[in-house]
């Protein structure tokens, strides 16, 4: 374990250098937009003690609902596209094209229709995460090796055995990869909606801090958001790596 940690020394070095430069710049040059590391840390502590991060639960709830919708819709759509080559050829380019448009621009429209409600944020999450998930899952579902499924049929494997031994190992890693992508996109959609709305969840904390020029608080909240998204990404990557190992075994 220690060995493994030690092998991360280049990353640790650059991260330390970044914090070092930040601290020196903040304490020597004192630009008004860069608070010192300590002030950010103490501001974070204050926020945490004062229960300000409790708004994160509403954010997380919205994220959960949105992801659920995305997974269900994504399963249906990708199932359809993976089944029919014709549908896939016809619709996947459209989905790709839709993904090249800036989804952010739709958020004000959602706000106009649904106001500052949870629905707006759920829709934003869905609009950010659905299409990338569908494209990835179509690839995953098509990835069942044909020769293996034929073999299992000729050995008269039961449906359950077929799914467990052939289908799952073949598709699980890619399915999880798609899910990870969806989570990343969902977090982006959620935070985007919250910042544009400006009165709910973590977005509210960010907007309030920046409106009042409370730099330590702004940095504390932004770093929290960044940390949360990186952690969720790393956790999901771990799950994916485990799934690939299981699939290969």
């Amino acid at each position: 374990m220690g060995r493994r940690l030690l092998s991360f020394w280049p990353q640790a070095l650059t991260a330390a250098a970044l914090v070092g430069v930040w601290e020196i710049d903040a304490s020597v040059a004192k630009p008004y937009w860069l608070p010192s590391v300590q002030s950010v840390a103490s501001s974070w502590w204050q926020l945490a003690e004062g229960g300000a991060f409790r708004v994160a639960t509403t954010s997380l709830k919205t994220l959960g609902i949105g992801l659920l919708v995305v997974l269900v819709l994504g399963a249906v759509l990708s199932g359809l596209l993976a089944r029919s080559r014709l549908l896939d050829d016809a619709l996947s380019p459209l989905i790709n094209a839709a993904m090249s448009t800036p989804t952010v621009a739709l958020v004000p429209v959602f706000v106009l229709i649904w106001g500052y409600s949870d629905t707006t944020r759920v829709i934003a999450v869905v609009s950010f995460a659905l299409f990338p998930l569908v494209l990835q899952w179509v690839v995953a579902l098509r990835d069942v090796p044909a020769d293996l499924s034929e073999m299992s049929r000729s050995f008269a494997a039961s449906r359950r055995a077929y799914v467990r031994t052939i289908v799952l190992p073949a598709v699980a890693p890619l399915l999880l990869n798609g899910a990870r992508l969806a989570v990343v996109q969902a977090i982006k959609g959620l935070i985007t909606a919250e910042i544009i709305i400006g009165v709910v969840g973590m977005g509210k904390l960010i907007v309030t801090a920046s409106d009042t020029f409370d730099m330590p608080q702004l940095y504390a909240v932004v770093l929290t958001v960044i940390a949360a998204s990186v952690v969720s990404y790393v956790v999901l990557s771990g799950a994916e790596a485990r799934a690939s190992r299981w699939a290969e075994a």
Partner: protein
Amino acid sequence: MTELDAYEAQPGEIAGLGESPPEAEAGLPPPRVGRRALRRRSRRALAVWAIRLVAVAVVVGIWEWLGRRDGGVFVAPFSTTVRHLVDLWRNGSLGTAMWRSNEALLIGFPISAVVGLPLGFLLGRVRLADRGLSYFLDVALVIPMIAIVPVIIVALGLTLTARVVVVIAFALPIVALNARAAVRIVETHLIEMSGAFGASRLQVWRTVIVPSSFAPVFTGLRVGLAHAISGMIVIELTLIPAGLGGLIVQFRSEFAAGDLYAVTLMILIEGLVLVGAAHAIERLVADRLGKTDG
């Protein structure tokens, strides 16, 4: 491999993934194409386009129907949206706003390319730099970049510079990571072979690395362009009401649904046109490169 390193396998983002799998078109060219096969293929192309048309028509139809049912207060029907789009274009407010918005893109995207590509090449070839720095780019791609927009605005004020910096923050990571992936997947045996034939470093770059990494690099630029457009809109929507985003903020507060939908549609169209054009250029150059290779 760090955990974040595994990022390379995401569709639509990195190098070629997420496009339709190439084996569909390139893998199995039938040796002799009979007339019947040709007819079958053209019938299939017809079906593909018919489904596409139907899909678009359904979306536009539902939009129109929802708008009519709603009376155009919250959902402006498609027809109204188009009318407002034409009006806004005619009276010049849309053109002015587009120009103002695109200033940031016009400056920011080339900078992302000029800085991002060499950075990516460096990270792809120099192991130590890669381990020390690449995870910053991975993180930049994973986090909601909009969260740092307020920080940038406080630091730089409500200026063009701030908007350019946001465009770069959105576009540069994906451009650099694709360039990195591109020079990494160059087959090492080609490099070794050219080394064995006494090619200089410069020659290896010019004759092996650059040509074979072209496609993923260009994909990175195209996706980067899409991200850059997002960045351009994001900052205008959040805190600097300028350009197109400014119009959106204004129309939203006036509850002018038709105008709001028109500007939104315009932004989507701009994304489609610019990224579509990039895609077309990419295909053109790739075709030409493929020809000189074979």
